[in-house]
């Protein structure tokens, strides 16, 4: 069944989302868009925006993807598959957290993973850019959002809402 394949995909993506919630984006793009074609690149971009617009963690965008592809039960299933790896691993880790936190294996592998995921995110930013930035106004909105989020402490939620308004006026 297609939905089981989807839930399994969400499960292992979240298992390998290491180093921050945003790390999920390159993994989702590979599996959900490029491999299984459950979403187009445009719809994928919309789901990132919706994940960012809602309060709470970005990972809730999986519920949107689940709903979009498989309806209500898809979204419920997506939530379960998203947080199942977390709950299994964190409860195990909390029994041994002192050893875990000070383990050289955890720390040195993280020293490799942290910078690598930055490279992955940069690559995905380019793919998304090719899809979204098609004329001068869209490029200006992207540069503007980058600058506001990177150089001021503005909440990304407001930037995305603002960009939606600009979109309605200009595009």
């Amino acid at each position: 069944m297609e939905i089981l394949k989807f839930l399994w995909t969400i499960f292992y993506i979240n298992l390998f989302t290491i180093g921050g919630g945003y790390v999920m984006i390159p993994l989702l793009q590979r599996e959900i868009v490029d491999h299984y074609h459950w979403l187009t690149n445009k719809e994928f971009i919309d789901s990132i925006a919706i994940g960012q617009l809602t309060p709470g963690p970005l990972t809730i965008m999986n519920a949107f993807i689940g709903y979009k592809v498989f309806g209500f039960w898809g979204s419920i299933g997506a939530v379960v598959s998203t947080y199942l790896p977390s709950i299994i691993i964190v409860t195990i880790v909390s029994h041994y957290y002192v050893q875990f936190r000070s383990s050289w294996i955890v720390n040195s592998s993280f020293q490799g993973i942290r910078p690598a995921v930055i490279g992955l995110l940069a690559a995905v930013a380019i793919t998304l850019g090719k899809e979204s930035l098609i004329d001068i106004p869209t490029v200006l909105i992207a540069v503007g959002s980058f600058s506001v989020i990177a150089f001021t402490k503005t909440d990304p939620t407001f930037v995305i809402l603002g960009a939606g308004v600009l979109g309605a006026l200009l595009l």
Partner: protein
Amino acid sequence: MKDVSLKDIFLIFLKIGAFAFGGVYSMLAFFEKELVHKKKWLGHEEFAESIVIGQLTPGAPIVNTGIFIGYTLKRFKGALATIAGQVLPSFLLVLIIASLYIKYKDIPLIRSVLKGIGSAVVGLVASVVYSMGKKFLTSYKSISFAVIAFLCLAIFKLNPIALIIISGIAGLIVYRRGKI
């Protein structure tokens, strides 16, 4: 274990889930205010510990921090209560937005709004690269990890999950010196 009811845990995380917009840091500040200062369920040290654990485990760090706190307070049920609380408000909102999205996404005005939002998402992801880069790309070694991972995905289209695993193993080899 402290004497905290599941309902209390659920409600406080519901508050966090409903009002903490935006980045991870705004959520962490919110966590600290509610859990350490107001409720006094945790000391500063335990709180700092739970953040580190959240970052070192797979998934959304903020959710993992919650699971860790919930588990410490009330074992497995406590952990579930923190997830339910954190996720419920945004989940309901996502359901509403998703059904509206499917109905109205092809209307020209909504298309324009989504085009604007889509451009902002590119800027947002780029800003994450920028802020994470400023924090973690501090040596030639770490910059090489980032550049190699970038090229492997952007040019060679290798599987990002495989790249995460390989970079972890490479980290073990490169950063091993001086440890046990």
